[in-house]
């Protein structure tokens, strides 16, 4: 029998069984006293008691007293669901000075008295108590795993999310290395002019964040730097970075370059070449890039007056001028057609895939508001310029955005709505028509009539695509969604966490966000990192795999089965004077799933606190009771 | 449907010529006051605006209009302004039954009774009580309306009139909202029910289905006031589907352009009112006329109140 595999416990288990009446919730449906009597006769049981409310103070006191006076050294409570009071009783045991992991719970309310009645309930409760007792006899005291953690975090990407996360962590006293691929801070935010709907200047926001980051002594800023290798685990990562030398003259002071961001000062002793960073947590804030329309998409690349929204924003910001007509590239613009959802909300069968077979099926979230803002700005500054917006759905979802939509309408922006499968067509106008281009659209707001929009300029509201971080994805084993953005563990339970412990995501590497939302995810990621590194060590559940080196033969089956690469490895060690390969667990990386247990041919590996032997003993108890 | 241009031009021509949209001489239309025992001096002038007096004539003319709507004869309407006949003037007056005219005169006489019972200090000067021009405004003949409104406002102003008691929503709206805006002349305007102080009534408790006219319910926000006046007399208002600011049109205003449409819209409203099971009460001559034409028993607010005094 497999129980033979269990090493006998020393000292012998003295099990106390405590059965709860739960004020009648349990005792009204079964004979609690009968359950107690049967428990009393189980092997290893030294005392079996009942109480009206085990969870009450007197109930907990009884357990503590029995532990303190040596009557018991293992505890079984039979009461409600463990989710309700397992923590309560473990706490009581800890307060009594004992190890909380010598505890086992029997669920005789939710799984017995509330679903069965009479003798059947009594019988099942007795069986579950016996099973719990069988397991309790095989429980060992466990210690939570505490791994020292480096109180240092690395933020990758210095856009708004990265800058914000770095600032936040430093403000909580955690040293930060901020790694940025380009030579400037600010990311895509720096490519903007004003941010709708508030009208904040992007330059002000970038300068404010950059100043906070550059001015904080706890933050090391490394521009022109990429991560080339990673190693380690939660609390103890080691990153290898490569830093390019500056191109052109380096500056002594931080300098804002329009549409590029803030160039940090370059001290003479600035590191370059390869360097390593020991860090406790990693925040990925690698951001997005703007969608580039395909050649010919809405006439892009075909007709020069077809430009993207970011290009329009830049052209308008570089030559800010009021006047009856908007001027772009020296041409007066009497009429602008803006087309929404370019490179976003693509539908299989309607939109062609890109060369790598991808479609951007997602909504890019920010383009509606950004387009409306540009349109409204044109109408206000250039009352002679007509603006048409061709949209599928206007998605002004955020605070102040619907108001911007209305304002643009009241300022004279004309809206036309098209169906995805009947997209507008951009063509050149006939020579006599006076405009460079015309856009034909079947307008659902005008009962499906085809309308012709005259246009001197066509603006494509291009969406967001994640930056290519395939190198990091490969190195850090990061999951990527169908949309090619980094995929969090769970959007609500663990929204800023990667499955690899200690790695977090912030900003638009996860999904399209506006500045507000990017800051929120950055703060959320920073708070997780701060909590993780709060006291210089990471405490982990003790329910992890443990190798019995005496039994292990080094077959490596467990390593192959392991679900978290790195948690299990074969290492060389001296056994009986010979160097042999044996499995070794890195507790910080072990998930405790037990996948290794099932495959070991020698029964040499088990999960602490829930061993296979314990389960087998429970099955035996169920059958024998 | 008649061509609106034709109707508008006919009405505009009449109003220019006779200060009356139907071209009927004032002394023929406005006869109700003769037996009402009214004084010519007091605090506020009763101003009927002629709407109640017009209803019998409108109904007669629309009976004919309904007959010819959507027929080739409809096009002949554009010659109406040259050929008075049943559409305007004395001819219309002659073919409108006297019984109908008396019925509407009674409403105005009831209003006088109510005002007297409430001890309101008011007077009446028939020569100053003229049509407000509201129909031209509604039809979009802004020029025609403004011209007429200025004429009337001047006339009242010259006579030293400051305070007016109105009896229908259209005239009330014209005097209260449109006159200040388009003529610059502002009067203190009160619909009569605002001034009523009637006390306990005759002790009978009844319930009515009160139809809020668009101008009171929506434009002037006055639907609570008549309900309160009714409540003073022990009369409850049954909850009507669509009332107050969300009241449903009676269809009446379409009469001159499309009697058929007026009937369709009116029928929907009638159904909503009939759902309550209570007797239907209106407080606008247009509503009263149109809903009655659809065969419903509809009484005027003033008649119901006068009866319960």
């Amino acid at each position: 029998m497999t129980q033979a595999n269990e090493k006998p416990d020393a000292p012998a288990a003295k099990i106390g069984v405590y059965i709860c009446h739960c004020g009648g919730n349990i005792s009204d449906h079964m004979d609690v006293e009968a359950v107690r009597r049967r428990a009393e006769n189980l092997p290893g049981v030294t005392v079996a008691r009942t109480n009206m409310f085990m969870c009450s103070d007197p109930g907990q006191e009884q357990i503590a007293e029995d532990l303190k006076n040596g009557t018991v050294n293992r505890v079984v409570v039979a009461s409600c669901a463990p989710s309700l009071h397992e923590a309560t009783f473990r706490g009581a045991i800890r307060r009594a000075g004992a190890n909380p992991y010598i505890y086992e719970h029997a669920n005789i309310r939710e799984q017995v008295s509330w679903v069965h009645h009479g003798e059947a309930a009594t019988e099942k409760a007795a069986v579950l108590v016996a099973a719990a007792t069988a397991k309790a006899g095989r429980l060992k005291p466990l210690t939570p795993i505490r791994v020292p953690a480096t109180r240092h975090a690395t933020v990758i990407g210095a856009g708004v999310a990265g800058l914000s996360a770095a600032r936040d962590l430093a403000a909580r006293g955690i040293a930060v290395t901020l790694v940025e691929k380009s030579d400037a801070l600010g990311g895509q935010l720096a490519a903007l002019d004003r941010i709708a709907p508030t009208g904040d200047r992007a330059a002000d926001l970038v300068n404010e964040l950059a100043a906070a980051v550059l001015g904080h002594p706890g933050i090391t800023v490394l521009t022109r730097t990429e991560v080339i290798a990673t190693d380690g685990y939660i609390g103890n990562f080691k990153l290898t970075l490569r830093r390019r030398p500056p191109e052109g003259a380096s500056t002594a002071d931080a300098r804002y370059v329009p549409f590029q961001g803030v160039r940090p000062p370059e001290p003479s002793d600035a590191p370059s070449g390869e360097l390593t960073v020991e860090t406790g947590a990693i925040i990925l804030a690698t951001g997005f890039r703007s969608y580039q329309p395909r050649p010919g998409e809405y006439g892009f690349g075909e007709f020069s007056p077809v430009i993207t929204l970011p290009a329009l924003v830049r052209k308008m910001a570089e030559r800010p001028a009021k006047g009856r007509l908007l001027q772009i590239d020296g041409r007066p613009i009497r009429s602008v057609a803006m087309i929404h959802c370019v490179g976003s909300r693509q539908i299989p069968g309607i939109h062609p895939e890109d060369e790598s077979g991808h479609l951007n099926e997602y909504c890019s979230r920010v383009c509606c508001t950004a387009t409306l803002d540009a349109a409204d700005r044109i109408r206000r500054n250039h009352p002679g310029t007509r603006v048409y917006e061709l949209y599928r759905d206007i998605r002004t979802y955020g605070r102040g955005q619907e108001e911007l939509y209305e304002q643009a309408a009241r300022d004279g922006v004309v809206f036309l709505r098209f169906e995805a499968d009947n997209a507008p067509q951009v063509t050149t106008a006939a020579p006599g028509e006076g405009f460079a281009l015309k856009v034909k659209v079947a307008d659902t707001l005008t009962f499906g009539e085809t309308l012709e929009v005259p246009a001197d300029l066509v603006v494509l509201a291009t969406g967001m695509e994640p930056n290519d971080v395939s190198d990091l994805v490969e190195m850090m084993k990061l999951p990527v969604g169908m949309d090619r953005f980094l995929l969090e563990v769970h959007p609500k339970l663990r929204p800023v966490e990667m499955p690899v412990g200690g790695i977090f995501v912030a900003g638009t590497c996860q999904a399209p966000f506006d500045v507000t939302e990017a800051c929120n995810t950055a703060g959320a990621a920073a708070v997780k990192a701060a909590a993780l590194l709060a006291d210089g060590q990471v405490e982990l559940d003790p329910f992890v795999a443990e190798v019995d080196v005496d039994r292990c033969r080094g077959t490596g089956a467990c390593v192959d089965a392991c679900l978290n690469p790195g948690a299990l490895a074969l290492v060389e060690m001296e056994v009986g004077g010979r160097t042999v390969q044996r499995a070794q667990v890195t507790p910080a990386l072990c998930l405790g799933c037990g996948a290794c247990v099932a495959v070991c041919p020698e029964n040499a590996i088990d999960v602490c606190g829930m061993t296979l032997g314990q389960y087998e003993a429970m099955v035996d108890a169920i059958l024998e009771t | 449907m008649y061509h609106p241009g034709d109707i508008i031009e006919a009405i505009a021509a009449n109003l220019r010529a006779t200060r009356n949209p139907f071209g009927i001489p004032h002394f023929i239309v406005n006869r109700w006051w003769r037996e009402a025992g009214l004084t010519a001096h007091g605090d506020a002038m009763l101003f009927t605006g002629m709407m109640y007096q017009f209803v019998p004539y409108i109904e007669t003319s629309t009976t004919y209009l309904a007959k010819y709507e959507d027929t080739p004869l409809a096009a002949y309407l554009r010659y109406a302004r040259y050929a008075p006949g049943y559409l305007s003037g004395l001819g219309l007056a002659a073919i409108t039954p006297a019984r109908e005219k008396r019925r509407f005169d009674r409403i105005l006489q009831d209003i006088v009774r109510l005002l007297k019972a409430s001890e309101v200090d008011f007077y009446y000067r028939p020569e100053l009580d003229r049509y407000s021009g509201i129909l031209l405004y509604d039809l979009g003949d802004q020029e025609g309306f403004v011209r007429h409104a200025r004429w009337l406002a001047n006339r009242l102003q010259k006579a030293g009139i400051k305070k007016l008691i109105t009896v229908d929503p259209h005239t009330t709206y014209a005097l209260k909202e449109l006159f200040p805006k388009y003529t610059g002349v502002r009067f203190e305007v009160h619909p009569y029910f605002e001034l009523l102080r009637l006390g306990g009534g005759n002790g009978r408790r009844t319930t009515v289905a009160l139809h809020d006219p668009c101008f009171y319910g929506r434009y002037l926000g006055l639907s609570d006031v008549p309900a309160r006046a009714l409540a003073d007399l022990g009369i409850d208002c049954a909850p009507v589907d669509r009332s107050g600011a969300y009241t449903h049109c009676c269809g009446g205003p379409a009469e001159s352009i499309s009697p058929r449409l007026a009937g369709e819209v009116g029928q929907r409203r009638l159904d909503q009112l009939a759902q309550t099971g209570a007797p239907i009460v209106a407080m606008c001559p247009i509503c009263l006329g149109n809903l009655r034409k659809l065969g419903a028993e509809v009484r005027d607010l003033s008649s119901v109140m006068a009866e319960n005094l």
Partner: protein
Amino acid sequence: MTLLSPDFAEELKRYSDDTALACFNCGTCTAICPLIDGHFPRKMIRYVQIGAKERILENAPELWKCLHCGLCTQTCPREANPGELILGLKRLVISHWRKA
């Protein structure tokens, strides 16, 4: 094919409050209108938005179906005042007819 000429909105300003562009084409006015008739009045407002003046003149008599009851204005989610716009269009059309 209809070519857009938004200058029509400017012309209408002489006759009415300039609120047509505030309309976001939800159709509440049409569905709430006691006339229960096709796309009236949103159709007219849409024609104003895109400047389809000829369409308005072609369909002008429809404007007088409006009873000026004000329910559309009361319920308009954008406070675009459709009732007042229809009245303004009536004025504009009459002025056209009278010029003709």
